[in-house]
């Protein structure tokens, strides 16, 4: 195909970003793709740095990297020695490596420190039209800005450091359109769960998902990040939302965003990024946004979703035999029975945080429900973990911390926390956790822990009631 023809063909946003970053076409639909931005954290980077050192290589563009510790950091008592020697080793290694290789670094005691996927956007590092990678699968989060962002493995981390490129095969285009407008009591998390429930955890495999439609346009940047964050749970390595006025307004003035002298040129470039109106997608899915309700997962796969007003499904409702077996296993692990009302599931622990839901808007959403109420007696621990030090400061400025602590919630320091059992924040075996994170896999929040994925408002309501409740009743009740 000639170049002129290619250019006249309508393109999706993904096609455009891919084309803009192709250094060399390779055989079989692969290309050497240029990587603009690279976020680094303590868990997946030490061996990459080690490999660089062993081969005597230098980092191609140190300016393309921000390093920040998040997975292993304790969320309280940070002045005390870290109880886990392994975490300490990784944290110390990161610090030594960034020094040796001369990288931008946000240390643990910096007020900007936090989860990579909260910090990147907050610093204006994440921008429309860029390629952005990180050794973490939830890098899809950054797609909220119209950035092609995806997670990579340790040897790829090294490859990007040394060459600023990756050899990749192009994915196919999928568009998920959410029509209508989001009902009261629902937020981006419910949209994400509704999409995964609809297409399944393999529905996006091999695709990059572009989210479109009025519900997506109405979402704040924070909401779009929540949505793109869970693209990986829908099987897609990356998600995208077209940049618009909200995106530009969010970025303006942030430390790593284009400065005043380049702002207009950048915006002009960004405005060319959205998919052409007649672009062809390999797969299209439409979801009725008006029909979305607050959702709760009951199983050990993010597609195991039920409306809060519904019940745990019956095994016979599933057609595929493999899924039936998986459901039987899940229910056993979760300690739930077929047909049990979701509202009857008692909650033992509550976690509001993670790269899915730890931004200021999530804090406000939780605070609106919590204000003037108190955590139920049966709750062992209810914690709110802001995604970054800046989110924490902002929340405190707004007095949200006071609302939380008055209600009996713990207000922690930023980090991945109970999203994964890699730091001191864990749930006990058999405990039901109302969690705003993204994965409800077996043992994810601690051996034997039972995770239920929900929105911040739903997690807050569950903490107060001691079991799942329809947050819409709370909202109606308080107004």
């Amino acid at each position, binding site marked *: 195909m000639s170049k002129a023809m290619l250019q006249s063909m309508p393109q999706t946003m993904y096609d455009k970003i891919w084309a803009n970053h192709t*250094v*060399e076409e390779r055989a079989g639909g692969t290309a*050497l793709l*240029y990587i*603009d931005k690279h976020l680094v954290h303590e868990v997946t980077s*030490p*061996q990459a740095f*080690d*490999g660089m050192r*062993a*081969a005597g*290589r230098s980092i191609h*563009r*140190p*300016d393309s990297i921000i390093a920040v510790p998040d997975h292993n950091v304790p969320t309280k008592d940070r002045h005390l020695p870290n109880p886990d020697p*392994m975490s300490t*080793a*990784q944290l110390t*290694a990161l610090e030594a490596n960034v020094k040796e290789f001369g990288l931008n670094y946000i240390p643990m005691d910096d007020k900007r420190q936090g989860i990579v996927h909260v910090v990147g956007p907050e610093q204006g590092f994440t*921008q429309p*039209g*860029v390629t952005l990678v990180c050794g973490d699968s939830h890098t899809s989060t950054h797609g909220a800005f119209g950035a092609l962002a995806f997670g990579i493995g*340790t*040897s790829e981390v*090294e*490859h990007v450091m*040394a*060459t*600023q*490129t990756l*050899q990749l095969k192009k994915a196919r285009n999928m568009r998920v359109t959410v029509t209508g407008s989001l009902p009261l009591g629902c937020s981006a998390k419910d949209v994400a769960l509704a999409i995964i429930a609809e297409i399944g955890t393999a529905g996006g495999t091999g695709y990059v998902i572009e989210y479109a439609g009025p519900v997506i346009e109405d979402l704040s940047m924070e909401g779009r990040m929540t949505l793109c964050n869970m693209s990986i749970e829908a099987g897609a390595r990356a998600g995208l939302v077209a940049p618009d006025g909200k995106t530009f307004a969010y970025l303006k003035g942030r430390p790593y965003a*284009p*400065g005043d002298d*380049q702002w207009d*040129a*950048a915006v002009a*470039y960004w405005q060319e990024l959205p998919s052409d109106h007649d672009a062809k997608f390999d797969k299209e899915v439409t979801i009725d946004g008006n029909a979305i309700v607050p959702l709760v997962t009951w199983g050990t796969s993010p597609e195991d979703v039920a409306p809060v007003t519904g019940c745990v499904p019956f095994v016979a409702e599933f057609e595929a035999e493999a899924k039936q077996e998986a459901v039987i296993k899940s229910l056993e692990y979760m300690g739930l029975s077929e047909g049990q009302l979701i509202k009857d599931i008692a909650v033992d622990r509550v976690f509001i945080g993670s790269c899915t839901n730890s931004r200021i808007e999530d804090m406000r959403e939780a605070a609106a429900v919590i204000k003037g109420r108190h955590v139920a007696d049966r709750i062992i621990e209810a914690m709110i973990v802001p995604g970054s030090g800046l989110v924490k400061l902002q929340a405190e400025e707004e007095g949200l911390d006071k609302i939380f602590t008055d209600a009996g919630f713990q207000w922690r320091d930023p980090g991945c926390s109970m999203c994964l059992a890699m730091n001191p924040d864990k749930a006990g075996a058999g405990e039901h956790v109302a969690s705003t994170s993204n994965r409800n896999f077996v043992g994810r929040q601690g051996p034997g822990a039972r995770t239920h994925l929900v929105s911040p408002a739903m997690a807050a309501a569950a903490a107060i009631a001691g079991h799942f409740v329809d947050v819409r009743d709370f909202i109606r009740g308080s107004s």
Partner: protein
Amino acid sequence: MQKFTKLSSIATPFPRVNVDTDIIIPAKHLKSIKRTGFGEHAFETVRFDSEGAPIEGNVFDCERYKDANILITGDNFGCGSSREHAPWAISELGFRCIVAPSFADIFSGNCVKNGILTVELPQGDVDALVLAAEAGHEIHIDLEEQTVLCQNAKYDFEYNAAHKEMLMAGLDEVGQTLRASKAIGSYEQKQKAATPWLFTAD
């Protein structure tokens, strides 16, 4: 990465089938932050008893095979997880070439990345090489010619052309991509003009 063209060495015979990555390097040793230091735990269950005491006469520690750079082993070597720690560990024991009837896919891919040649030969030939290794005969590997010579016998082997190129040139994946440095450089020049805000540091 060290180039691989020819290798002459005595060999360690380890004719066990289905040696998985957990045997090569047990999962409990993966929590390191380095890619070195795995050699001491490589083949741990073969080399040490449950108390941690060295097992007398195991092929990996005995004097006889101390200088071996070649490992002769059994079918389906390297099956299990995708961990790159397995070739790292093997490399640290001094092996640069492994001969077996077959290898797990991901494992042989990971070997190339780490400069290790995996040679597949029919079971009968491998059996003969095991005997030769036990007798202390030198084995000669020639990657260019794709041959294994031992005493008077010559064995031809098949090998992936791209992998051969990487090993012979001493290039890992990064090294291979760095061959496109010029293209990367001119791409950057072009982008600096199109999106200067992404190149503020220089």
